[in-house]
Protein backbone atom coordinates (compact mmCIF):
# COMPACT_ATOMS: atom_id res chain seq x y z
CA UNK A 1 0.00 0.00 0.00
CA UNK A 2 1.05 3.58 -0.50
CA UNK A 3 0.47 6.19 2.18
CA UNK A 4 1.10 9.91 1.80
CA UNK A 5 1.46 11.98 4.93
CA UNK A 6 1.45 15.77 4.88
CA UNK A 7 3.47 17.53 7.55
CA UNK A 8 4.31 21.14 8.30
CA UNK A 9 7.42 22.71 9.74
CA UNK A 10 6.36 25.18 12.43
CA UNK A 11 8.14 27.45 14.88
CA UNK A 12 8.16 25.92 18.35
CA UNK A 13 5.38 28.09 19.73
CA UNK A 14 6.45 27.51 23.31
CA UNK A 15 9.51 29.57 22.49
CA UNK A 16 7.94 32.32 20.44
CA UNK A 17 8.39 35.78 21.85
CA UNK A 18 6.85 39.01 20.71
CA UNK A 19 9.21 41.96 20.63
CA UNK A 20 8.04 44.23 23.44
CA UNK A 21 8.53 47.44 21.50
CA UNK A 22 7.75 46.65 17.90
CA UNK A 23 5.19 43.89 18.57
CA UNK A 24 6.66 41.66 15.93
CA UNK A 25 7.34 37.98 16.22
CA UNK A 26 10.97 37.37 17.05
CA UNK A 27 11.84 34.39 14.90
CA UNK A 28 15.57 34.56 15.38
CA UNK A 29 16.76 31.64 17.40
CA UNK A 30 13.30 30.06 17.64
CA UNK A 31 13.80 26.42 16.71
CA UNK A 32 11.53 24.86 14.13
CA UNK A 33 9.89 21.49 14.70
CA UNK A 34 7.57 19.14 12.89
CA UNK A 35 4.06 20.25 13.86
CA UNK A 36 3.50 18.05 16.94
CA UNK A 37 0.03 16.96 15.80
CA UNK A 38 1.56 15.59 12.58
CA UNK A 39 3.69 13.11 14.51
CA UNK A 40 0.58 11.13 15.49
CA UNK A 41 -0.37 10.89 11.82
CA UNK A 42 3.19 9.94 10.86
CA UNK A 43 3.36 7.18 13.46
CA UNK A 44 -0.01 5.80 12.38
CA UNK A 45 1.16 5.80 8.75
CA UNK A 46 4.37 3.98 9.67
CA UNK A 47 2.45 1.38 11.70
CA UNK A 48 0.10 0.68 8.80
CA UNK A 49 3.05 0.35 6.45
CA UNK A 50 4.78 -2.06 8.84
CA UNK A 51 1.61 -4.14 9.18
CA UNK A 52 0.49 -4.18 5.56
CA UNK A 53 3.74 -3.65 3.70
CA UNK A 54 4.14 -0.71 1.44
CA UNK A 55 5.61 2.76 1.36
CA UNK A 56 5.18 6.01 3.21
CA UNK A 57 5.79 9.23 1.31
CA UNK A 58 6.05 12.33 3.44
CA UNK A 59 5.16 15.64 1.83
CA UNK A 60 5.47 19.22 2.93
CA UNK A 61 5.06 22.63 1.38
CA UNK A 62 7.33 25.36 2.65
CA UNK A 63 10.55 27.28 2.25
CA UNK A 64 13.78 25.39 1.43
CA UNK A 65 14.58 25.09 5.15
CA UNK A 66 11.52 22.83 5.56
CA UNK A 67 13.82 20.10 4.26
CA UNK A 68 14.94 19.69 7.88
CA UNK A 69 11.45 18.56 8.88
CA UNK A 70 11.41 16.03 6.04
CA UNK A 71 14.82 14.69 7.07
CA UNK A 72 13.47 14.15 10.57
CA UNK A 73 10.49 12.30 9.14
CA UNK A 74 12.86 10.10 7.12
CA UNK A 75 14.73 9.47 10.34
CA UNK A 76 11.55 8.10 11.88
CA UNK A 77 11.33 5.69 9.00
CA UNK A 78 9.42 7.32 6.14
CA UNK A 79 10.46 5.91 2.77
CA UNK A 80 10.43 9.02 0.63
CA UNK A 81 10.23 12.77 1.10
CA UNK A 82 8.94 15.48 -1.20
CA UNK A 83 9.43 19.19 -0.58
CA UNK A 84 7.05 21.40 -2.47
CA UNK A 85 8.78 24.74 -2.62
CA UNK A 86 8.30 27.69 -4.91
CA UNK A 87 8.04 31.43 -4.45
CA UNK A 88 4.60 31.25 -6.07
CA UNK A 89 3.32 29.52 -2.93
CA UNK A 90 4.20 32.45 -0.65
CA UNK A 91 1.22 33.90 1.18
CA UNK A 92 -1.03 30.87 0.68
CA UNK A 93 -4.10 30.67 2.88
CA UNK A 94 -5.74 27.32 3.63
CA UNK A 95 -7.58 27.15 0.31
CA UNK A 96 -4.44 27.83 -1.75
CA UNK A 97 -2.42 25.46 0.45
CA UNK A 98 -4.89 22.61 -0.01
CA UNK A 99 -4.82 23.26 -3.76
CA UNK A 100 -1.04 23.06 -4.02
CA UNK A 101 -0.80 20.01 -1.74
CA UNK A 102 -3.57 18.17 -3.55
CA UNK A 103 -1.84 18.78 -6.89
CA UNK A 104 1.42 17.51 -5.43
CA UNK A 105 -0.30 14.43 -3.98
CA UNK A 106 -1.77 13.69 -7.40
CA UNK A 107 1.71 13.97 -8.87
CA UNK A 108 3.16 11.74 -6.16
CA UNK A 109 0.40 9.28 -7.06
CA UNK A 110 1.26 9.36 -10.77
CA UNK A 111 4.94 8.93 -10.05
CA UNK A 112 5.02 6.43 -7.22
CA UNK A 113 1.57 4.84 -7.18
CA UNK A 114 -1.85 6.13 -6.18
CA UNK A 115 -2.05 6.57 -2.42
CA UNK A 116 -4.55 4.43 -0.51
CA UNK A 117 -4.58 6.77 2.45
CA UNK A 118 -3.53 10.39 2.87
CA UNK A 119 -2.79 11.42 6.45
CA UNK A 120 -2.58 14.85 8.04
CA UNK A 121 -2.40 16.00 11.64
CA UNK A 122 -5.51 17.28 13.36
CA UNK A 123 -4.33 20.87 12.93
CA UNK A 124 -1.10 22.86 13.13
CA UNK A 125 0.09 24.71 16.20
CA UNK A 126 0.85 27.92 14.30
CA UNK A 127 -2.25 28.28 12.15
CA UNK A 128 -4.63 26.15 14.25
CA UNK A 129 -7.24 26.04 11.48
CA UNK A 130 -7.76 22.28 10.90
CA UNK A 131 -8.87 23.17 7.37
CA UNK A 132 -6.13 21.92 5.11
CA UNK A 133 -6.91 18.23 5.65
CA UNK A 134 -10.59 18.56 4.71
CA UNK A 135 -9.57 20.83 1.83
CA UNK A 136 -7.26 18.18 0.38
CA UNK A 137 -9.93 15.50 0.79
CA UNK A 138 -12.49 17.57 -1.08
CA UNK A 139 -10.13 18.46 -3.92
CA UNK A 140 -8.93 14.89 -4.44
CA UNK A 141 -12.40 13.46 -3.85
CA UNK A 142 -11.13 11.32 -0.97
CA UNK A 143 -13.48 10.17 1.76
CA UNK A 144 -12.89 12.40 4.75
CA UNK A 145 -12.29 10.93 8.19
CA UNK A 146 -11.28 13.63 10.70
CA UNK A 147 -10.30 13.37 14.38
CA UNK A 148 -9.63 9.66 14.06
CA UNK A 149 -8.68 8.13 17.42
CA UNK A 150 -8.16 4.60 16.17
CA UNK A 151 -8.06 2.62 12.94
CA UNK A 152 -10.12 -0.38 14.00
CA UNK A 153 -9.66 -2.42 10.84
CA UNK A 154 -8.37 -2.16 7.32
CA UNK A 155 -9.17 -4.54 4.48
CA UNK A 156 -7.03 -3.79 1.45
CA UNK A 157 -8.80 -6.34 -0.78
CA UNK A 158 -12.27 -5.06 -0.02
CA UNK A 159 -10.88 -1.48 0.12
CA UNK A 160 -12.71 -1.06 3.41
CA UNK A 161 -11.65 0.84 6.54
CA UNK A 162 -13.28 1.09 9.96
CA UNK A 163 -12.30 3.88 12.31
CA UNK A 164 -13.23 5.38 15.65
CA UNK A 165 -13.76 9.09 15.25
CA UNK A 166 -13.83 11.60 18.07
CA UNK A 167 -16.98 13.68 18.01
CA UNK A 168 -18.68 15.99 20.50
CA UNK A 169 -19.57 13.95 23.55
CA UNK A 170 -18.53 10.56 22.27
CA UNK A 171 -16.93 8.32 19.70
CA UNK A 172 -18.40 7.62 16.30
CA UNK A 173 -17.70 4.22 14.72
CA UNK A 174 -17.46 4.69 10.96
CA UNK A 175 -17.05 2.35 8.04
CA UNK A 176 -15.67 3.87 4.88
CA UNK A 177 -13.69 3.09 1.76
CA UNK A 178 -10.23 3.66 0.40
CA UNK A 179 -8.86 5.95 -0.79
CA UNK A 180 -9.52 8.22 2.15
CA UNK A 181 -8.00 11.13 4.03
CA UNK A 182 -7.48 10.73 7.75
CA UNK A 183 -6.70 13.49 10.21
CA UNK A 184 -5.28 11.84 13.29
CA UNK A 185 -6.25 12.85 16.80
CA UNK A 186 -3.50 13.70 19.28
CA UNK A 187 -2.49 11.30 22.03
CA UNK A 188 -3.47 8.26 20.00
CA UNK A 189 0.03 6.82 19.73
CA UNK A 190 3.61 7.72 20.42
CA UNK A 191 6.14 8.48 17.72
CA UNK A 192 8.78 5.78 17.54
CA UNK A 193 12.47 6.29 18.03
CA UNK A 194 13.87 5.96 14.56
CA UNK A 195 16.25 3.04 14.10
CA UNK A 196 19.91 3.48 13.35
CA UNK A 197 19.28 2.15 9.85
CA UNK A 198 16.58 4.77 9.33
CA UNK A 199 18.92 7.47 10.58
CA UNK A 200 21.61 6.38 8.13
CA UNK A 201 19.10 6.18 5.29
CA UNK A 202 17.73 9.61 6.18
CA UNK A 203 21.17 11.14 6.00
CA UNK A 204 21.85 9.53 2.64
CA UNK A 205 18.50 9.68 0.91
CA UNK A 206 17.50 12.55 -1.24
CA UNK A 207 14.65 14.87 -0.51
CA UNK A 208 12.83 15.49 -3.78
CA UNK A 209 12.41 19.21 -4.33
CA UNK A 210 9.48 20.10 -6.52
CA UNK A 211 8.59 23.50 -7.90
CA UNK A 212 5.01 24.32 -8.84
CA UNK A 213 5.78 23.16 -12.37
CA UNK A 214 7.32 19.90 -11.12
CA UNK A 215 4.12 19.19 -9.20
CA UNK A 216 2.11 19.66 -12.39
CA UNK A 217 0.60 22.96 -11.31
CA UNK A 218 -0.02 25.05 -14.40
CA UNK A 219 -2.57 27.47 -12.98
CA UNK A 220 -0.46 29.69 -10.77
CA UNK A 221 -3.38 32.04 -10.12
CA UNK A 222 -4.69 29.42 -7.71
CA UNK A 223 -1.48 29.49 -5.67
CA UNK A 224 -0.04 31.74 -3.01
CA UNK A 225 -1.46 35.15 -2.30
CA UNK A 226 -3.27 35.26 -5.64
CA UNK A 227 -5.05 32.00 -5.00
CA UNK A 228 -6.08 32.93 -1.47
CA UNK A 229 -9.58 34.30 -0.97
CA UNK A 230 -8.71 35.51 2.53
CA UNK A 231 -6.58 38.58 3.10
CA UNK A 232 -4.86 39.55 6.35
CA UNK A 233 -5.61 43.23 6.74
CA UNK A 234 -4.30 43.98 10.18
CA UNK A 235 -1.97 42.37 12.68
CA UNK A 236 -1.79 43.65 16.22
CA UNK A 237 -0.87 42.68 19.75
CA UNK A 238 -3.64 41.69 22.14
CA UNK A 239 -4.71 44.47 24.48
CA UNK A 240 -3.29 44.19 27.95
CA UNK A 241 -5.37 44.67 31.04
CA UNK A 242 -4.50 47.93 32.78
CA UNK A 243 -4.44 46.70 36.36
CA UNK A 244 -2.66 43.67 37.69
CA UNK A 245 -4.18 41.13 40.04
CA UNK A 246 -5.04 42.38 43.52
CA UNK A 247 -2.63 40.47 45.71
CA UNK A 248 -3.70 38.93 48.95
CA UNK A 249 -1.01 39.59 51.48
CA UNK A 250 0.54 36.39 52.78
CA UNK A 251 3.23 37.73 55.09
CA UNK A 252 3.22 36.11 58.51
CA UNK A 253 -0.23 34.62 58.09
CA UNK A 254 -1.39 31.07 58.56
CA UNK A 255 -2.47 29.31 55.36
CA UNK A 256 -5.91 28.89 56.89
CA UNK A 257 -6.31 32.64 57.34
CA UNK A 258 -5.07 33.36 53.84
CA UNK A 259 -7.61 30.88 52.49
CA UNK A 260 -10.44 32.51 54.45
CA UNK A 261 -9.35 35.91 53.21
CA UNK A 262 -9.30 34.70 49.62
CA UNK A 263 -12.77 33.18 49.90
CA UNK A 264 -14.08 36.43 51.38
CA UNK A 265 -12.52 38.37 48.50
CA UNK A 266 -14.07 35.97 45.96
CA UNK A 267 -17.54 36.38 47.45
CA UNK A 268 -17.16 40.15 47.71
CA UNK A 269 -16.47 40.33 43.99
CA UNK A 270 -18.99 37.70 42.95
CA UNK A 271 -21.69 37.52 45.65
CA UNK A 272 -23.89 35.20 43.60
CA UNK A 273 -21.19 32.53 43.73
CA UNK A 274 -21.80 32.04 47.43
CA UNK A 275 -25.13 30.37 46.78
CA UNK A 276 -23.94 28.50 43.74
CA UNK A 277 -20.93 26.92 45.37
CA UNK A 278 -22.93 26.07 48.45
CA UNK A 279 -25.46 24.07 46.50
CA UNK A 280 -23.21 22.54 43.86
CA UNK A 281 -20.30 21.68 46.05
CA UNK A 282 -19.72 20.38 49.51
CA UNK A 283 -20.47 16.89 48.30
Amino acid at each position, binding site marked *: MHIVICIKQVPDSAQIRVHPVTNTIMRQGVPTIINPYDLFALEEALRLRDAYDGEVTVLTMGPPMAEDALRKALGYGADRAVLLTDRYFAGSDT*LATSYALSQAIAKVGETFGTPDIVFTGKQTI*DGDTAQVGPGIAKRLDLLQLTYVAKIASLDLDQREIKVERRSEGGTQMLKSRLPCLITMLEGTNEIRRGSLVDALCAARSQVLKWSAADAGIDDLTRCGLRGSPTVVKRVFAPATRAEKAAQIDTTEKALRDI*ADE*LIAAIFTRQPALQHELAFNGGA
Partner: protein
Amino acid sequence: MSTVNRETTRPAAGRAGIKKELPAHFKDYRHVWVFIELERGQVHPVSFELLGEGRKLADKLGVELAGVVIGPPGEATRPAVADAFAYGADLVYIVEAPLLADYRNEPFTKAMTDLVVTHKPEILLLGATTLGRDLAGSVATTLLTGLTADCTELDVDTDGSLAATRPTFGGSLLCTIYTLNYRPQMATVRPRVMPMPQRTDRPAGRVIRHKLSVPEDEIVTKVLGFLPDSQSANANLAYADVVVAGGLGLGSAENLQLVKNLARAIGAEHGCSRPLVQKGWMSADRQIGQTGKTIRPKLYIAAGISGAIQHRVGVEGADLIVAINTDPNAPIFDFAHLGIVTDAIRFLPALTEAFTRRLSPHNRDKLAS
Protein backbone atom coordinates in the same frame (compact mmCIF):
# COMPACT_ATOMS: atom_id res chain seq x y z
CA MET B 1 3.77 37.99 8.62
CA SER B 2 7.08 38.25 10.37
CA THR B 3 7.70 41.95 10.11
CA VAL B 4 4.31 43.58 10.45
CA ASN B 5 3.94 46.24 13.06
CA ARG B 6 1.30 46.84 15.61
CA GLU B 7 -1.83 48.62 14.41
CA THR B 8 -0.60 48.96 10.89
CA THR B 9 -3.00 48.43 8.08
CA ARG B 10 -1.09 46.82 5.33
CA PRO B 11 -2.04 47.84 1.84
CA ALA B 12 -4.06 44.87 0.68
CA ALA B 13 -1.51 42.91 -1.22
CA GLY B 14 -1.52 41.15 -4.55
CA ARG B 15 -4.79 40.21 -6.11
CA ALA B 16 -6.85 41.71 -3.35
CA GLY B 17 -5.46 45.15 -4.04
CA ILE B 18 -6.20 44.94 -7.73
CA LYS B 19 -9.80 43.75 -7.64
CA LYS B 20 -11.52 45.82 -5.01
CA GLU B 21 -14.92 45.38 -6.61
CA LEU B 22 -16.94 42.31 -5.67
CA PRO B 23 -17.54 40.26 -8.83
CA ALA B 24 -21.06 40.74 -10.20
CA HIS B 25 -22.19 37.17 -9.60
CA PHE B 26 -21.60 37.59 -5.86
CA LYS B 27 -23.52 40.84 -5.53
CA ASP B 28 -26.85 39.21 -4.75
CA TYR B 29 -25.36 37.28 -1.83
CA ARG B 30 -27.17 38.70 1.21
CA HIS B 31 -28.07 37.85 4.80
CA VAL B 32 -26.25 36.19 7.66
CA TRP B 33 -26.51 32.47 8.32
CA VAL B 34 -25.67 30.46 11.40
CA PHE B 35 -25.34 26.69 11.25
CA ILE B 36 -27.38 25.19 14.09
CA GLU B 37 -25.39 22.17 15.15
CA LEU B 38 -27.80 19.38 15.98
CA GLU B 39 -26.31 16.05 16.91
CA ARG B 40 -28.20 13.14 18.43
CA GLY B 41 -31.10 15.35 19.45
CA GLN B 42 -28.92 17.96 21.14
CA VAL B 43 -28.24 21.46 19.88
CA HIS B 44 -24.66 22.44 20.65
CA PRO B 45 -24.74 25.66 22.73
CA VAL B 46 -22.08 27.22 20.48
CA SER B 47 -24.94 27.65 17.98
CA PHE B 48 -26.68 30.06 20.37
CA GLU B 49 -23.46 32.00 20.92
CA LEU B 50 -23.15 32.31 17.14
CA LEU B 51 -26.77 33.46 16.81
CA GLY B 52 -25.93 36.23 19.30
CA GLU B 53 -23.01 37.35 17.12
CA GLY B 54 -24.94 36.78 13.91
CA ARG B 55 -27.76 39.00 15.18
CA LYS B 56 -25.34 41.89 15.70
CA LEU B 57 -23.81 41.45 12.24
CA ALA B 58 -27.23 41.20 10.57
CA ASP B 59 -28.45 44.35 12.35
CA LYS B 60 -25.36 46.29 11.31
CA LEU B 61 -25.82 45.17 7.72
CA GLY B 62 -29.59 45.67 7.81
CA VAL B 63 -30.21 42.10 6.65
CA GLU B 64 -31.88 38.98 8.02
CA LEU B 65 -30.40 36.34 10.31
CA ALA B 66 -31.15 32.77 9.35
CA GLY B 67 -30.51 29.53 11.22
CA VAL B 68 -29.61 26.45 9.18
CA VAL B 69 -30.78 23.13 10.59
CA ILE B 70 -29.71 19.89 8.93
CA GLY B 71 -31.28 16.66 10.14
CA PRO B 72 -33.80 13.87 9.68
CA PRO B 73 -37.43 14.58 8.73
CA GLY B 74 -40.07 14.77 11.42
CA GLU B 75 -39.93 15.90 15.00
CA ALA B 76 -36.17 15.61 15.55
CA THR B 77 -35.36 19.07 14.19
CA ARG B 78 -38.23 20.85 15.95
CA PRO B 79 -36.31 21.84 19.14
CA ALA B 80 -33.42 23.16 17.05
CA VAL B 81 -35.80 25.34 15.04
CA ALA B 82 -37.46 26.66 18.21
CA ASP B 83 -34.04 27.41 19.70
CA ALA B 84 -32.91 29.26 16.58
CA PHE B 85 -35.87 31.63 16.82
CA ALA B 86 -35.52 32.02 20.58
CA TYR B 87 -31.91 33.14 20.15
CA GLY B 88 -32.59 35.69 17.46
CA ALA B 89 -33.07 34.12 14.02
CA ASP B 90 -35.56 35.76 11.65
CA LEU B 91 -35.98 32.62 9.61
CA VAL B 92 -34.80 29.03 9.58
CA TYR B 93 -33.77 26.82 6.68
CA ILE B 94 -34.19 23.11 7.23
CA VAL B 95 -32.56 20.53 5.02
CA GLU B 96 -34.03 17.15 5.85
CA ALA B 97 -33.54 13.57 4.79
CA PRO B 98 -33.46 10.27 6.69
CA LEU B 99 -29.76 9.89 5.93
CA LEU B 100 -29.04 13.13 7.78
CA ALA B 101 -29.89 11.54 11.14
CA ASP B 102 -26.23 11.14 12.11
CA TYR B 103 -23.48 13.54 11.15
CA ARG B 104 -21.45 12.42 8.18
CA ASN B 105 -19.26 14.65 6.07
CA GLU B 106 -20.56 13.72 2.61
CA PRO B 107 -24.32 14.34 2.95
CA PHE B 108 -23.93 17.32 5.29
CA THR B 109 -21.48 19.00 2.89
CA LYS B 110 -23.92 18.44 0.06
CA ALA B 111 -26.85 19.72 2.10
CA MET B 112 -25.03 22.90 3.11
CA THR B 113 -23.44 23.71 -0.24
CA ASP B 114 -26.72 23.18 -2.10
CA LEU B 115 -28.47 25.50 0.33
CA VAL B 116 -25.78 28.17 -0.04
CA VAL B 117 -25.88 28.02 -3.82
CA THR B 118 -29.68 28.26 -3.79
CA HIS B 119 -30.19 31.04 -1.24
CA LYS B 120 -26.84 32.90 -1.38
CA PRO B 121 -25.88 34.15 2.09
CA GLU B 122 -23.11 36.74 2.42
CA ILE B 123 -21.90 35.42 5.78
CA LEU B 124 -21.94 31.83 7.08
CA LEU B 125 -20.91 31.09 10.66
CA LEU B 126 -20.24 27.65 12.17
CA GLY B 127 -19.05 26.46 15.57
CA ALA B 128 -15.42 25.31 15.70
CA THR B 129 -16.40 21.94 17.13
CA THR B 130 -15.23 18.61 15.72
CA LEU B 131 -18.40 18.58 13.63
CA GLY B 132 -18.25 22.23 12.60
CA ARG B 133 -14.60 22.09 11.60
CA ASP B 134 -15.11 18.88 9.65
CA LEU B 135 -18.00 20.46 7.76
CA ALA B 136 -16.68 24.01 7.32
CA GLY B 137 -13.46 22.95 5.58
CA SER B 138 -15.34 20.81 3.07
CA VAL B 139 -17.98 23.42 2.38
CA ALA B 140 -15.47 26.25 1.89
CA THR B 141 -13.34 24.13 -0.44
CA THR B 142 -16.38 23.05 -2.46
CA LEU B 143 -17.50 26.67 -2.81
CA LEU B 144 -13.88 27.87 -3.26
CA THR B 145 -14.39 30.66 -0.77
CA GLY B 146 -12.49 31.97 2.25
CA LEU B 147 -12.85 30.47 5.71
CA THR B 148 -11.42 32.05 8.83
CA ALA B 149 -11.06 29.62 11.72
CA ASP B 150 -11.47 30.16 15.45
CA CYS B 151 -12.43 33.82 15.36
CA THR B 152 -12.50 35.73 18.61
CA GLU B 153 -14.16 38.84 17.24
CA LEU B 154 -16.53 39.40 14.33
CA ASP B 155 -17.47 42.80 12.97
CA VAL B 156 -18.72 44.48 9.85
CA ASP B 157 -16.43 46.98 8.12
CA THR B 158 -17.63 50.29 6.69
CA ASP B 159 -17.89 48.70 3.24
CA GLY B 160 -19.98 45.83 4.59
CA SER B 161 -17.20 43.22 4.62
CA LEU B 162 -16.89 40.74 7.45
CA ALA B 163 -13.85 41.58 9.60
CA ALA B 164 -12.90 38.35 11.33
CA THR B 165 -10.25 38.61 14.05
CA ARG B 166 -8.41 35.55 15.29
CA PRO B 167 -5.34 34.78 17.36
CA THR B 168 -2.22 33.68 15.52
CA PHE B 169 1.11 32.26 16.71
CA GLY B 170 -0.57 30.69 19.70
CA GLY B 171 -2.25 33.94 20.71
CA SER B 172 0.88 36.12 20.65
CA LEU B 173 -0.71 38.27 17.99
CA LEU B 174 -4.17 38.88 16.61
CA CYS B 175 -4.96 39.31 12.95
CA THR B 176 -8.04 40.61 11.21
CA ILE B 177 -8.92 38.68 8.08
CA TYR B 178 -11.21 39.58 5.19
CA THR B 179 -12.67 37.49 2.40
CA LEU B 180 -12.78 40.26 -0.14
CA ASN B 181 -13.93 38.91 -3.47
CA TYR B 182 -15.67 35.67 -2.63
CA ARG B 183 -18.98 34.75 -1.05
CA PRO B 184 -20.10 33.59 1.37
CA GLN B 185 -17.60 34.90 3.88
CA MET B 186 -17.19 31.92 6.20
CA ALA B 187 -15.95 31.86 9.77
CA THR B 188 -15.85 29.43 12.67
CA VAL B 189 -15.89 30.35 16.35
CA ARG B 190 -14.91 28.07 19.20
CA PRO B 191 -17.42 27.28 21.94
CA ARG B 192 -17.42 29.78 24.82
CA VAL B 193 -15.44 32.43 22.97
CA MET B 194 -18.58 34.55 22.48
CA PRO B 195 -20.98 35.33 25.33
CA MET B 196 -24.24 33.38 25.58
CA PRO B 197 -27.10 35.65 24.50
CA GLN B 198 -30.35 35.91 26.41
CA ARG B 199 -33.07 33.50 25.33
CA THR B 200 -36.19 35.43 24.33
CA ASP B 201 -39.82 34.68 23.56
CA ARG B 202 -39.72 36.13 20.10
CA PRO B 203 -42.43 34.82 17.85
CA ALA B 204 -41.25 32.11 15.46
CA GLY B 205 -40.44 33.32 11.96
CA ARG B 206 -40.49 31.69 8.56
CA VAL B 207 -39.35 28.14 8.06
CA ILE B 208 -38.10 27.13 4.63
CA ARG B 209 -37.82 23.40 4.07
CA HIS B 210 -35.63 21.59 1.59
CA LYS B 211 -35.26 17.91 0.99
CA LEU B 212 -31.89 16.39 0.26
CA SER B 213 -32.54 13.89 -2.46
CA VAL B 214 -29.51 11.64 -2.23
CA PRO B 215 -30.13 7.92 -1.78
CA GLU B 216 -28.34 6.24 1.11
CA ASP B 217 -26.44 3.89 -1.18
CA GLU B 218 -24.66 6.87 -2.76
CA ILE B 219 -23.17 7.76 0.62
CA VAL B 220 -20.06 5.65 1.12
CA THR B 221 -19.35 6.25 4.80
CA LYS B 222 -21.66 4.42 7.21
CA VAL B 223 -22.13 5.03 10.91
CA LEU B 224 -21.74 1.69 12.69
CA GLY B 225 -22.33 3.00 16.16
CA PHE B 226 -21.83 5.73 18.69
CA LEU B 227 -20.23 5.36 22.07
CA PRO B 228 -21.12 8.27 24.34
CA ASP B 229 -18.46 9.40 26.79
CA SER B 230 -18.93 7.84 30.19
CA GLN B 231 -20.35 10.22 32.76
CA SER B 232 -17.11 10.45 34.70
CA ALA B 233 -14.98 11.11 31.66
CA ASN B 234 -17.48 13.55 30.26
CA ALA B 235 -15.63 16.74 31.01
CA ASN B 236 -18.02 19.55 30.35
CA LEU B 237 -15.19 21.89 31.00
CA ALA B 238 -16.07 24.51 28.42
CA TYR B 239 -19.50 25.19 29.91
CA ALA B 240 -18.68 24.79 33.61
CA ASP B 241 -19.49 27.74 35.90
CA VAL B 242 -16.55 27.05 38.17
CA VAL B 243 -13.19 25.66 37.03
CA VAL B 244 -10.03 24.75 38.95
CA ALA B 245 -6.89 24.03 36.94
CA GLY B 246 -3.34 23.03 37.66
CA GLY B 247 -0.05 23.75 35.94
CA LEU B 248 3.60 22.76 36.07
CA GLY B 249 3.92 24.48 39.46
CA LEU B 250 2.24 21.45 40.97
CA GLY B 251 5.46 19.56 40.40
CA SER B 252 4.08 16.09 39.84
CA ALA B 253 1.14 14.19 38.41
CA GLU B 254 0.21 13.03 41.93
CA ASN B 255 -0.31 16.60 43.09
CA LEU B 256 -3.10 17.03 40.55
CA GLN B 257 -5.20 15.26 43.15
CA LEU B 258 -5.08 18.53 45.13
CA VAL B 259 -6.76 20.29 42.20
CA LYS B 260 -9.38 17.56 41.89
CA ASN B 261 -10.08 17.69 45.64
CA LEU B 262 -10.75 21.42 45.54
CA ALA B 263 -12.88 21.00 42.42
CA ARG B 264 -14.99 18.35 44.13
CA ALA B 265 -15.42 20.46 47.26
CA ILE B 266 -16.87 23.39 45.33
CA GLY B 267 -18.65 21.52 42.54
CA ALA B 268 -16.19 22.62 39.86
CA GLU B 269 -14.72 20.99 36.78
CA HIS B 270 -10.98 20.50 36.76
CA GLY B 271 -8.51 21.14 33.97
CA CYS B 272 -4.86 21.86 33.29
CA SER B 273 -2.45 23.87 31.18
CA ARG B 274 -0.84 22.50 28.01
CA PRO B 275 2.50 21.27 29.42
CA LEU B 276 0.66 18.81 31.66
CA VAL B 277 -1.02 17.19 28.69
CA GLN B 278 2.31 17.01 26.91
CA LYS B 279 3.78 15.30 29.98
CA GLY B 280 0.88 12.87 29.99
CA TRP B 281 -0.31 13.96 33.46
CA MET B 282 -3.83 14.68 32.27
CA SER B 283 -5.87 13.84 29.17
CA ALA B 284 -6.10 16.26 26.26
CA ASP B 285 -9.82 16.93 26.74
CA ARG B 286 -8.96 18.63 30.04
CA GLN B 287 -6.55 21.10 28.48
CA ILE B 288 -7.45 24.76 28.78
CA GLY B 289 -6.09 27.32 26.33
CA GLN B 290 -5.68 28.20 22.68
CA THR B 291 -5.10 24.61 21.60
CA GLY B 292 -7.45 23.18 24.22
CA LYS B 293 -10.78 24.34 25.60
CA THR B 294 -11.89 27.93 25.90
CA ILE B 295 -13.68 28.46 29.19
CA ARG B 296 -15.92 31.25 30.44
CA PRO B 297 -16.72 30.36 34.05
CA LYS B 298 -17.91 32.66 36.80
CA LEU B 299 -14.88 31.62 38.82
CA TYR B 300 -11.56 30.27 37.58
CA ILE B 301 -8.84 29.19 39.99
CA ALA B 302 -5.42 28.63 38.37
CA ALA B 303 -2.94 26.81 40.59
CA GLY B 304 0.73 26.72 39.61
CA ILE B 305 -0.01 28.00 36.10
CA SER B 306 2.38 30.64 34.84
CA GLY B 307 -0.08 32.07 32.35
CA ALA B 308 1.55 31.74 28.94
CA ILE B 309 -0.24 33.66 26.20
CA GLN B 310 -1.79 30.51 24.78
CA HIS B 311 -3.37 29.75 28.18
CA ARG B 312 -4.54 33.32 28.57
CA VAL B 313 -6.45 33.20 25.30
CA GLY B 314 -8.56 30.35 26.65
CA VAL B 315 -9.50 31.86 30.03
CA GLU B 316 -9.88 35.59 29.47
CA GLY B 317 -13.65 35.33 29.31
CA ALA B 318 -13.88 34.21 32.96
CA ASP B 319 -15.71 36.62 35.28
CA LEU B 320 -13.22 36.17 38.11
CA ILE B 321 -9.73 34.71 37.77
CA VAL B 322 -7.82 33.69 40.90
CA ALA B 323 -4.13 32.87 40.43
CA ILE B 324 -1.91 30.99 42.86
CA ASN B 325 1.78 31.01 41.95
CA THR B 326 5.12 31.17 43.72
CA ASP B 327 6.56 33.59 41.17
CA PRO B 328 5.34 37.15 41.76
CA ASN B 329 6.35 38.02 38.19
CA ALA B 330 4.40 35.20 36.54
CA PRO B 331 2.41 36.55 33.59
CA ILE B 332 -0.79 35.09 35.06
CA PHE B 333 -0.87 37.96 37.55
CA ASP B 334 -1.20 40.34 34.59
CA PHE B 335 -4.67 39.06 33.76
CA ALA B 336 -5.90 37.48 36.99
CA HIS B 337 -8.18 39.53 39.22
CA LEU B 338 -7.03 38.06 42.53
CA GLY B 339 -3.53 36.79 43.16
CA ILE B 340 -1.73 34.91 45.89
CA VAL B 341 2.03 34.51 45.77
CA THR B 342 2.42 31.18 47.48
CA ASP B 343 3.09 27.51 46.80
CA ALA B 344 -0.06 25.94 45.38
CA ILE B 345 0.94 22.51 46.67
CA ARG B 346 0.73 23.77 50.24
CA PHE B 347 -2.10 26.23 49.71
CA LEU B 348 -4.62 24.09 47.84
CA PRO B 349 -5.38 21.77 50.80
CA ALA B 350 -5.89 24.80 53.04
CA LEU B 351 -8.22 26.39 50.50
CA THR B 352 -10.18 23.16 50.08
CA GLU B 353 -10.53 22.88 53.81
CA ALA B 354 -11.62 26.53 54.14
CA PHE B 355 -14.22 26.18 51.38
CA THR B 356 -15.56 22.97 52.91
CA ARG B 357 -15.89 24.70 56.27
CA ARG B 358 -17.61 27.68 54.72
CA LEU B 359 -19.94 25.55 52.60
CA SER B 360 -20.73 22.96 55.26
CA PRO B 361 -24.39 21.91 55.55
CA HIS B 362 -24.73 23.99 58.67
CA ASN B 363 -23.54 27.18 57.01
CA ARG B 364 -25.39 26.27 53.88
CA ASP B 365 -28.68 26.17 55.78
CA LYS B 366 -27.94 29.53 57.29
CA LEU B 367 -27.40 30.88 53.78
CA ALA B 368 -30.62 29.44 52.46
CA SER B 369 -32.77 30.80 55.27
